[in-house]
């Protein structure tokens, strides 16, 4: 394997990691609160708001139903507004983030739903405010499930980032398509896939480790 190819793979790996890290981080920062809102505004929940809940639900579903490759090009004006360009790694991170937010939100909502209603009731009997219930009961008790959801999101982002090539975002997927597929170079294709497999394995193992460490169930 030539050193040029190694450089190319290394460069692409960094691009993939960069896109996944940026979009994963921002999606977590926005998706977790959205997930909490989706949960606590449900009927019979601590901040039951049926109208808001339905509205948030619809927005979340719309976000999740748009195929990523379409989202990628559809929001180009928005991307340009945020990062000043519609091509490049940063430009690819914008649609990745947009796609990941509702994904994270639904997974967080699901994790919160696993928290026993009895715990919320106990906190209420102690005179906890809704905010205290969220911060001291719901989020800490759902910690394992939330980390699990974020791990799933990161792995999905690795896969989605392969489409970033469509807007010149680079990354391993793009490398595989351009060198491996378009130039009929099976070695590059194989290396790309192997690096992606290893990356996903590492993310999953890290996520599992964090779940084990944080959860005392």
């Amino acid at each position, binding site marked *: 394997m030539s050193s040029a190819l190694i450089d190319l793979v290394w460069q692409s790996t960094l691009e993939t990691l960069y896109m996944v890290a940026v979009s994963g981080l921002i999606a977590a920062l926005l998706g977790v609160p959205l997930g909490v809102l989706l949960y606590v505004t449900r009927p019979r929940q601590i901040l039951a708001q049926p109208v808001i809940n339905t509205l948030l639900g619809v927005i979340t579903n719309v976000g999740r139903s748009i195929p990523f490759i379409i989202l990628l090009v559809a929001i180009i004006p928005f991307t340009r507004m945020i990062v000043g360009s519609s091509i490049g790694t940063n430009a690819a991170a914008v649609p990745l983030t947009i796609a990941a937010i509702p994904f994270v939100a639904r997974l967080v909502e699901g994790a919160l739903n696993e928290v026993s209603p009895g715990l919320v009731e106990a*906190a209420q009997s102690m005179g906890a405010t809704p905010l205290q219930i969220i911060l001291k009961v719901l989020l800490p008790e759902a910690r394992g499930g939330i980390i699990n959801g974020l791990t799933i999101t990161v792995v999905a982002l690795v896969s989605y980032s392969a489409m970033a090539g469509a807007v010149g975002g680079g990354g391993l997927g793009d490398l595989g398509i351009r060198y491996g597929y378009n130039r009929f170079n099976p070695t590059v294709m194989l290396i790309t896939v192997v690096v992606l497999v290893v990356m996903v394995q590492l993310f999953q193992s890290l996520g599992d480790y964090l779940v084990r460490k*944080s959860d005392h169930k």
Partner: protein
Amino acid sequence: MITLERVSKTYGSGGRAVQALEDIDLTVPKGTIHGVIGLSGAGKSTLIRCVNLLERPSAGRVFVDGQELTALDAAQLRQARHQCGMIFQHFNLLTNRSVYDNVALPLELMRESREAIRERVMPLLELTGLADKARQYPAELSGGQKQRVAIARALASRPKVLLCDEATSALDPQTTTSILSLLQEINQQLGLTILLITHEMEVVKSICHRVGLISDGRLVEEADVGDFFTAPATRLGREFLNDFLELEPPQALVERLEAEAGPHTHPVVRLTFSGDSVSTPLISRLAREHGIDVSILQAKVESIQGRTLGLMIAELMGGAEQTRQALATLESFDLHVEVLGHVQRTD
């Protein structure tokens, strides 16, 4: 300390409305342990949740320590809830908090300082026998230990009232006993008023001073525990008592029982003795005065809150007229006579 005034609770509305509680009046004096017993679905859980307004009554008023909770806004209610500790059937401990941090939770919610929390939590862990478990997590504890943590947690905010929602129903008999004695200790040492709901007569018998019987959302009977166990006023009360004492006629006898008396039958009666009648030699009097042979099929003596209770299932063997007089004699004493049925003579 706790007063419920004509409390009703209806779920749903219109044709599908379900009345969970109907016109409940209940008073629990300071320092007493009051039990409410009933079958599942009778409204027990709703009743106890109405005291700290986890369920808001559809009608009626709730007072705790003279304060009308039903008149408070959300913020005032949160303050008032510090006066009411609560423990649950399934403990409801936070799994991701250590024992210490679970007990500290109510104090954190009240924004107490770290030092104040420490000074409060450690004695509570001593009281509940958990001092060596402070750093462990609930998953590492047994059911009884979990309920002890829950009790310590409920006491952290120095409440005046402790609400127990089926607190021992998920525990084995031995653990139940130890939790009940802890509750009794708390009641005596701290003067805490306790309202508990349960479906177990054992719980009522062991620690309650007064008991209410709930059925279909209504309090159908209320009495001192001694009275309730010796002379329940309602049919449901007697059923609870008989189940508790396991004084049901044996199956072989039940199969032979006939509802109507015939020319060749003997009555089978269930006698409940209490008070003076316990020490009266009734059986020998029946034999002597009425010429009746009494065949005892089952008997049991229980001591409840210092009062003796005797139960007996017996066949009265004699002629029709003698048996009638014997029954009249029995009823003239301070005891409850119930004719279960009649069996064909075998003699």
